[in-house]
């Protein structure tokens, strides 16, 4: 099912940015992102999977551990360290999958803003590279490029396809 409210785009070299509005005050959204008993109820991944292990430290330097379990008992683990935590508006943490398919660790930043009882989530994940991570931590918005790459990519691919079909 698709919802018109979730936007996912690539930004810069190594960032993925997601924005989504939730019909709830940000205090609650923050709790849902940081309390294991709540995370286990929504961050369960693909159908048939559960978030079997969920530990999230509320302290800077504390650790994060998630283990998802699939229908056949297969497991996917992720570990991280909390870098910043400012309830109820901001959390930054590193993340690295046990069997990672990309080099190095990623850094995830969750920013919550509230307006009229609704909360806007901006979740940024920076893959690999220290420079990219420092950029996003120091000036997440200055690096912003408003163009949505995925829309552009889809459009260009479509145009090129149409063209090659015409010329074929």
């Amino acid at each position, binding site marked *: 099912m698709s919802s018109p409210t979730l936007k996912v785009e690539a930004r810069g070299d190594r960032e993925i940015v997601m924005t989504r509005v939730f019909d709830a005050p940000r205090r609650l959204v923050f709790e849902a992102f940081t309390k294991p008993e709540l995370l286990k109820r*929504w961050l369960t991944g693909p159908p048939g999977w559960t978030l079997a292990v969920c530990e999230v430290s509320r302290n800077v330097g504390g650790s994060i551990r998630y283990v998802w379990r699939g229908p056949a008992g297969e497991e996917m683990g992720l570990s991280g360290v909390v870098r910043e935590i400012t309830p109820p508006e901001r959390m930054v943490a590193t993340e690295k999958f046990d069997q990672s398919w990309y080099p190095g660790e990623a850094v995830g930043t969750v920013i919550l803003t509230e307006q009229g009882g609704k909360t806007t989530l901006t979740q940024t994940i920076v893959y690999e590279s220290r420079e990219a991570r420092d950029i996003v931590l120091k000036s997440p918005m200055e690096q912003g490029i408003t163009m949505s790459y995925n829309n552009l990519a889809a459009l260009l691919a479509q145009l090129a396809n149409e063209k090659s079909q015409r010329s074929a």
Partner: protein
Amino acid sequence: MQPSGYAKLDATFAALADPTRRAILARLASGEATVNELAEPFSMSQPAISKHLKVLERAGLISRSRDAQRRPRRLEAQPLAEASEWLERYREFWEDNFQRLDALLHELQVKPRAKRTKRRHSKRTGDHQ
């Protein structure tokens, strides 16, 4: 996806990070063009445009046609399609999670309200006694 797949996506997104390169791709989407033709709309030297073309070429987003004299560049759709497909899968994964979060947030807001009403009610009843 294989690590090489991710390295390729990295190259695609890095190439797309620059506005001039995005404009070049948009121009090539309507047909192949020579370096001179591509340089025209930008107030840029030909070497500067060539540098951007090299980045796009290395990312596999454009290629050179066989026409040896004009060497026009043309758009390669495959890496762009892969990049957009990756983002779409990623979006779907998170949208599933977020829909469950919607339901949970709704439940969390209904429950405490119900409890508070009950407490207030019993307190009031207590006052009367």
